[in-house]
């Protein structure tokens, strides 16, 4: 009984802190509302949530253990996080789509992706619409939610170029720098054209310029790697990743003593969001929702930054918010990449496959 009271107390403190940090209308601490209480009970009954992303995303398996402890402590739950070091986001989403088409349960409970992975499958109606705001009124705000609650923003990433500062032949400033002879055969790109796909939009570079650049880049690169494989840049296997997904991996590797830095190219700066979505065929949908809600509390965002060096930039006290503000002072103009924006630019999907084929084919 005493333990229950303590949990209740902790939860109230956590939620009060969350609401206080969110200012304005959220400043008034509220009781655990019935919706959240119900969600907690349902999640507890499910007992587990299965997640899968790369080892560098949200701290991978170690991060999952930290999130599990923090969430259970804050919300008084007893939920186990089953974490699988996973393949790329597109593959996880595609596998869940295949499982859904076959009438099977999804092998993961939460889908993580950015606009390039989420937008193409929106039409499949895979994601459960959720009234997120009811769980943390004022804490979860409308600007976090897209597609009527089927997806929710969890962190903000800044795409650029991750490179090995010690071995780099020069200090790059713009994307064109990587087409210089000094970099030939020493850099990598992603097999999914991360960041480069955004350039296809008519209001960014447009098709002609982007395809020409990617063709030239393909002749420069030695290979392809995933965004989560920054260790390959740290080891010097590749001297740079043109372009990366969030660039925050550079900060993680700097902490380990690796000479990794990120370039924010003035000609292609992008601010993108990572989304969570709960698949309709999830095995533990309530635990998935609760984990998402927890991630959007100040405690969850603090852990996100600690494990991934990334958080949601418009949350009060956000480190990404400060970073973006700093870049803006230096005249960096970010293109904000949301699922909505992506859907409004069909020219991207029309040519994205071509970019992928160019990058994954060795001449």
């Amino acid at each position, binding site marked *: 009984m005493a333990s229950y009271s303590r949990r209740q107390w902790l939860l109230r403190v956590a939620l009060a802190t969350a609401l206080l940090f969110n200012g304005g209308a959220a400043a008034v601490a509220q009781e655990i509302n019935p919706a959240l209480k119900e969600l907690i009970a349902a999640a507890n009954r499910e007992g587990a949530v299965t997640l899968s992303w790369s080892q560098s995303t949200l701290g991978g398996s170690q991060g999952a253990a930290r999130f599990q402890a923090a969430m259970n402590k804050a919300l008084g739950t007893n939920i186990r996080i089953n974490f699988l070091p996973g393949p790329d986001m*597109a593959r996880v989403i595609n596998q869940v789509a295949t499982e859904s088409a*076959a009438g099977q349960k999804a092998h993961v409970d939460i889908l993580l992706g950015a606009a390039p992975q989420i937008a193409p499958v929106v039409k499949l109606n895979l994601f459960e619409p959720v009234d997120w705001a009811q769980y943390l009124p004022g804490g979860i705000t409308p600007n976090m939610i897209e597609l009527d609650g089927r997806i929710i923003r969890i962190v903000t990433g800044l795409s650029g170029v991750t490179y090995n500062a010690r071995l780099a032949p020069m200090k790059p400033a713009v994307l064109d720098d990587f087409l210089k002879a000094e970099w030939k055969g020493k850099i990598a790109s992603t097999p*999914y054209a991360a960041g480069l796909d955004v350039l296809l939009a008519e209001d960014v570079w447009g098709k002609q310029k982007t395809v020409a650049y990617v063709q030239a880049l393909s002749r420069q690169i030695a290979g392809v790697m995933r965004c989560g*494989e920054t260790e390959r840049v740290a080891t010097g296997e590749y001297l740079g990743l043109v372009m990366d997904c969030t660039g925050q991996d550079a900060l993680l590797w700097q902490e380990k003593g690796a000479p990794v830095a990120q370039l924010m190219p003035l000609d292609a700066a992008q601010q993108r969001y990572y989304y969570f979505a709960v698949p309709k065929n999830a095995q533990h949908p309530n635990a998935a929702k609760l984990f998402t809600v927890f991630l959007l509390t100040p405690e969850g965002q603090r852990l996100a930054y600690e494990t991934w060096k990334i958080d949601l930039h418009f949350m009060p006290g956000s480190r990404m918010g400060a970073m973006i503000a700093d870049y803006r002072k230096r005249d960096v103009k970010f293109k904000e990449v949301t699922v909505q924006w992506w859907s409004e630019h069909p020219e991207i999907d029309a040519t994205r496959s071509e970019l*992928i084929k160019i990058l*994954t*084919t060795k001449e």
Partner: protein
Amino acid sequence: MSLSSRLRDLGEAMPAIMLVVVAGASVVVVCPLAVVLWLSWTNGSPGDPDLTYTAQNFVEVFSDARTFAVLLDTIDFSLIALAVALAFGIPAAWLAERTDFPAKSLLFTLMAVGLLIPGFAAAMGWLFLLHPRIGLLNQLLMSSFHLAGPPLSINSIAGMGWVQGLNLAPLAFIMTAAVFRSLDPTLEEAAQMHGADGFTVLRRITVRLAWPGILAAAIYIFMTAFAAFDVPAIIGWGNRIFTFTTYLYLLLNPQDSLPRYGLGAALSTVAMVIAALMSAWYGAMQRRSRRFAVVTGRAYRPKIVRLGRRRPAAWCFVGGYFVLGKVLPIALLGWSSLLPFFQLPSARAVATISLAHYLSLPWQLVLTALWNTSVLAVLTPSLTLVLSLAFSWIVLRSKFPGRAAFDFIAFLPHAVPSIVFGVGALLLTLFVIQRALPIYGTVWILLIVFTIARLSYATRMTNSGLIQIHPELEESALISGGTAWDAFARISLPLLAPTLLYAWLWIALLIFRELTLAVILSTADNLTFPVVVWSLWLGGGLGQASALAVVMLLTMTPMIAIYWLLARRQGLLAS
């Protein structure tokens, strides 16, 4: 009816029961291939009511120049792997069988054990050894000879073929050793009596006699390399070099659209045709090689070549293979596992050595994967051998019409690349039998597919074992009043026991390192040990992946030791 008469009836019904088992197993073997063939002619997702039939998949596969480029690269890769495997395997086999090389037992042991070391572990080690920029050997060569650029590169078809070839050299050794062992020495002796020197005898007699057997082994190794996944995935993927298996994996996991299974299935049928042609050639070569084998009951003793002053060279050759093929890559893997990120050996790197990667491994996941793998390593060989016995008995002992077809079906999993079976099984369980048999994402689908994949090897073992037991022994039991089951269980089975035990352990060890099928069929609930290593590698945890690969090798060591003891007791390792 009394219990004894019921048991007797059951014993008499054994042939019918075995036929049912074999027929059922044959359906399970054929079904995944049938699904692949079916899907290759469809457009749309399986299960979709709008699914249409079309030849578009084949048109698309064959109109894409990349398909041909990938197939050519796969053939190049397989040929290089074959050349490397034979270059190390044949001389080693010759040393072991036809010379007075002093450490034959050690050579057999190391070769057999070498085959069990996972290919992906060696590939990871070779990346750290021979990468153009971070490879230890390249850096040493560049600093020693003041070279401007790296002299060697593992990131090429040749590099991948080299690593795959080193992994397959033990297979070449085991297969060609059997050929050298069964050669008729009288022809060599006759040549020597006519004044031919040792080299001439080797070149004009020994090699020519052994040629059909070597060719059969070469075809087998080529097919194995063609179907290999781990080395091309670890080394080739990031360097945009695709072979058949990794390209198929790419088609099934596209970045820009939902998986197009029809396209993957169409590509798979190409591989099935190639495999069928190679298998037919392999069968012909095997039949031809038997014509050169010593099958008489005459006193037979192979002529042993004295190495004399060439003995140190023989030691260098054998030692060189083990250092290159096993010791160096595993040592580099161990080194990588101790560093926060891979660095060349230096004082600064040594200062950062720690067990952090080992301590930070997702141990709960590792233990779950270890449990799954252990369950599969016990159940797969058991089920495979039960089925193989039934197949062999039906094919060799029964008089059922059309029984030869069962032998052909049992050989199919060898002929067709296992990744094709994996894809077929995935689609079958997802879209066709999902309601009747919901095994998608469970260890049971792995058990079934692993069993199918090992059926060829197991039936070859049980076939050869059963052939050596004369049917008269079983007939005697029947004449003495025993049932068919009595004859089988009390005569054949005890005589087959050593073969079965050896095959069981061999399959169990191979299951422990199986990656290709597990990668295709894995989900959260059926992860195996190699898949976790692969996932960590793929997910950017190079150090953790190295650490887990080392843990995996250590875990396999006691099993390998048991295998070695058993095989040695049976005289399968000693010359």
